[in-house]
């Protein structure tokens, strides 16, 4: 008889009568659940569509928000604006990642020498996590140009992005810090005992594990950043939201806003699914057992 690694004999096996009965029951139960779920979804959808389309204001709403012609005519302009949102997300996302990591490291430094660094990082986090993002963008976008400082940009796009970076760095920094502090002290002890310095320990042992652990939360923030990049439209930057606003202003047809919304969803939904997938993969097989 052959044996595998664990010393278990591998003898031929066919399921017992009890196991066959259990499988038949599970199959039947699964079928019943799928049928119930499908039927109830169809019913809900039908009721909703009937209620909405039979409502007195529907023809007007349909014309104002879901006009196909308007959607087609406004699409190129909104898409061009949306391309700006995508670029903002990618570039700001990278900068925020670096700033957030720096803030997190600054806040985890120990020892009196680093008090000023820690204090700065804490104050920064408290301020920008506490202020509404729209306020940060407004203050920067309108306040900085008013100062008339030579050499400082008056470009509202740059200032708006700065607002996003400041606010999101504070959040991302806290997420990464939580990850760093979740790594068991014995990992640091093991690294230091091998002669690694504090910085090497962070670089090769703590941060790789911490980032892996908080990756789902970081991707969640990236999805959120993608949406919030629309906020800089209040400074007059022509992104998807502002482009839709311009299109809408011509004839007071709100369809371009719906177009912009669909474009945002077309990016955030796949990103969210990807985040879920990363989180699930991290759980690893067998972590939860049968529950």
């Amino acid at each position, binding site marked *: 008889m052959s044996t595998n690694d664990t010393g278990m004999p591998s003898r031929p096996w066919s399921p017992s009568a009890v196991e066959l009965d259990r499988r038949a029951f599970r199959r039947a139960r699964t079928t019943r659940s799928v049928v119930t779920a499908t039927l109830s979804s169809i019913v809900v959808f039908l009721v909703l569509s009937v209620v909405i389309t039979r409502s007195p204001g529907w023809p007007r709403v349909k014309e104002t928000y879901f006009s196909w012609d308007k959607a087609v005519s406004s699409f190129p302009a909104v898409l061009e604006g949306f391309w700006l949102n995508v670029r903002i997300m990618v570039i700001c996302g990278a900068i925020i990642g670096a700033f957030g990591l720096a803030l997190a490291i600054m806040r985890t430094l120990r020892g009196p020498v680093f008090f000023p660094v820690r204090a700065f990082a804490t104050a920064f986090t408290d301020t920008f996590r506490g202020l509404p993002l729209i306020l940060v963008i407004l203050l920067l976008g309108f306040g900085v140009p008013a100062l008339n400082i030579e050499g400082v940009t008056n470009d509202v796009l740059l200032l708006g992005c700065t607002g996003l970076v400041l606010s999101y760095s504070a959040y991302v920094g806290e997420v990464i810090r939580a990850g760093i502090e979740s790594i068991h002290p*014995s*990992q640091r*002890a*093991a*690294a*230091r*005992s*091998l*002669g*690694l*310095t504090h910085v*090497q320990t962070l670089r*090769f*042992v703590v941060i*790789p*594990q911490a980032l*892996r652990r908080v990756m789902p939360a970081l991707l969640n923030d990236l999805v959120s950043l993608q949406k919030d990049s629309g906020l800089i439209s209040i400074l007059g930057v022509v992104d998807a939201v502002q482009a839709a606003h311009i299109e809408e202003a011509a004839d007071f047809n709100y369809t371009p806003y719906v177009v912009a919304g669909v474009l945002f969803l077309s990016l955030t939904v796949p990103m969210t699914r990807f985040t879920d997938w990363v989180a699930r993969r991290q759980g690893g097989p067998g972590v939860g057992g049968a529950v």
Partner: protein
Amino acid sequence: MSDLSVVGLRKAFGNHVVLSGFDLSVAHGECVVLIGASGSGKSTVLRCVNLLETVDDGVIRLGGDDVTDPRADPDAVRARMGIVFQSYNLFPHLRVLDNITLAPVRVHGVARAAAERAAREMLDRVGLADKASARPDELSGGQQQRVAIARALVNSPELMLLDEVTSALDPELVGEVLELLVDLKRDGMTMLLATHEMAFAKQVADRVCFLHGGRVHEEGPPSELLVAPREDRTRQFLSRFVSL
């Protein structure tokens, strides 16, 4: 020549004094085993020697150098010794091979190819040549502990510190780790270890120290201390190990 000497060591955690006036010396190539009840300070001695704890008082010398001097570079001191922990503490995000090569490459400036060659040799020595690419969580406890020992040994330490390295293992896995340590002892490694395995202590120790009241309460060769202790407290402690 004394490789490690500890004189007048004191260490307290808050109001709880763990070590007080603790003296110990380990000669070159000697294997000293610390025994004692839980909380008697065995682990604290090892952690102080490895500078993972800052001592409250006393002097620890390694090869004549005062390592407790705050002017000494603690990273350089730690690089001269290896420590193995009860809970293995392998780096879960790195393959077995990378766990072993991390310190040689980053601390000792060994070229990666050479470090990997040395790491594979070391894995072969601990009987895990086929596990180089495995992740730590794919290994059994005994295998993880042997990797941890390989990770410490690959840096050619002057002194090995072993902190209850078999406490988390079942009896069958304990055997494979202890065998490795017996080999190490035969090769002349200077070792200081804390253990609850009296049979093992008997087998490898040149000297056994019983810790009680924050210091070495009684010490002697295993054939004397473990068999016919002079002190009542030592006898009382050892009486619980029926196998002896």
